[in-house]
């Protein structure tokens, strides 16, 4: 049974327990063991990296060192955590001096980082280690081909030499649920979440452009794999209605929610009512 160190971060459990619950249930159904990491804290997010690189490096090195102890890969459902851990590890693997310096700090916690640990987005881990075929086998009521647009999130995809991700992974995973992947021009564009603290209007505009591109392409739902992106694209639809007078009515779902529904779980199990733009229209697309 594939076993992982689950790094949940702080955003998913606080803001999107529906994502967390759906993930745990899907993992269980796929015979994947996700063990919450013990004694770990926040990654600080790219925000911390911006004003305190070294502090950011140490807190993430600490998480990495804890994960390294049992030899299992670290998986996370949050792009912010993914980027922090992955970036910090990338840097430490390439910078011996910082690795040494960070390890001095880690001694205080009786930890040592060698840099052998692997960090992965949990969806990629399911894709690679369980496989699309095995997942498809568990899909009991596939979606009816409804068009869903994927917003992968910048920090999951770029920089590619750090993230080692490809969009095809998400596309194949989505197709395994029976949905149709809707391509749209602004698929690479940022959702705007990161700029929210310093320029809200800009953040809203970015989300709006993205939503419009998705709507114009004919998608009925949006799939995300990050709580920050999910929050931005879902919640901002209400702000956009106020600011721009435009209603997009595009429900935003976390991938495990979509998969769980297709695997036969009911909407309460995946907390569908917590999605801000009502997501229950997805239920109409499940084939019985």
């Amino acid at each position, binding site marked *: 049974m594939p076993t992982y160190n689950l790094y949940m971060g702080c*955003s998913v459990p606080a803001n999107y*327990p529906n994502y967390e619950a759906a993930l745990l249930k899907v993992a269980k159904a796929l015979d994947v063991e996700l063990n919450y990491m013990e004694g770990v*804290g926040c990654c600080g997010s790219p925000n911390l990296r911006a004003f305190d690189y070294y502090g950011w490096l140490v807190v993430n090195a600490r998480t990495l060192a804890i994960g390294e102890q049992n030899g299992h890969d670290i998986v996370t459902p949050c792009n912010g955590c993914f980027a922090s851990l992955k970036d910090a590890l990338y840097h430490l693997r390439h910078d011996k001096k910082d690795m040494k310096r960070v390890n001095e700090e880690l001694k205080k916690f009786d930890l040592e980082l060698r840099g052998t640990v692997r960090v992965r987005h949990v969806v990629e881990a399911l894709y690679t280690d369980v496989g699309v075929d095995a997942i498809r086998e568990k899909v009991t009521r596939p979606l009816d081909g409804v068009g869903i647009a994927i917003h992968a999130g910048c920090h999951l995809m770029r920089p590619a030499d750090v993230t080692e991700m490809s969009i095809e992974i998400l596309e194949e995973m989505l197709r395994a649920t029976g949905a149709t992947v809707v391509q749209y021009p602004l698929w690479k564009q940022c959702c705007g979440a990161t700029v929210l603290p310093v320029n809200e209007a800009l953040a809203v505009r970015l989300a709006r452009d993205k939503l419009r591109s998705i709507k114009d392409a004919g998608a009925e739902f949006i799939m995300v794999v990050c709580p920050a992106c999910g929050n931005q694209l879902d919640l901002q639809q209400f702000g956009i209605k106020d600011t721009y007078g435009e209603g997009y009515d595009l429900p935003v779902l976390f991938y495990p929610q979509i998969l769980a529904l297709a695997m036969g779980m009911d909407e309460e199990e995946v907390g569908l009512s917590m999605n801000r733009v009502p997501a229950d229209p997805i239920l109409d697309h499940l084939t019985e």
Partner: protein
Amino acid sequence: MTETDGSERPPATLIEPIDMSTLDASFRREIQSMPDGDELSACFACTTCTAACPIANQWEYKPHQLIRMIILGMRDEVLSSKEIWECLTCFQCQERCPQKVRVTDIIFDCKNLAAEEGKIPDAIRNLARELLEKGQLYVITADWEREDLDLEPELPGLSTEEFKTILRNTRTGRIVGGE
């Protein structure tokens, strides 16, 4: 001669060129010594980064100009710019750079230098304070929601003290403590 109302202004004057001797020629080396800054010099100002940036069209300093300014030594202007804090960190510039200049990473470096000098937007400073106080970005408040979903009310394994301890002694502590 026409009557003037007394608020006559001097004619628009010519702007002095930037005197290169007043700039900080060591800035480029400073950035190059920072994480992922070493490829800075490879920039040949093709402006691909600016073409790739989704928001630069509303910036005074475009990404390629920020890189140019770093190379020329315009330290104060770069570190005081609002642009570095508005960077989405979407890495599109970096991903498309034909010379493998790690543009986004370099902007991260600039933000760190700016923060060290106290040039930091209030919103970010508040964020630093919250991180230090809470030990995390988001704290679970609606534990009943979690229980409804068969989740533990508190996040299993969470420990915030180490995070606070570390950041108290790094720049976060200085930023917050310096108030």
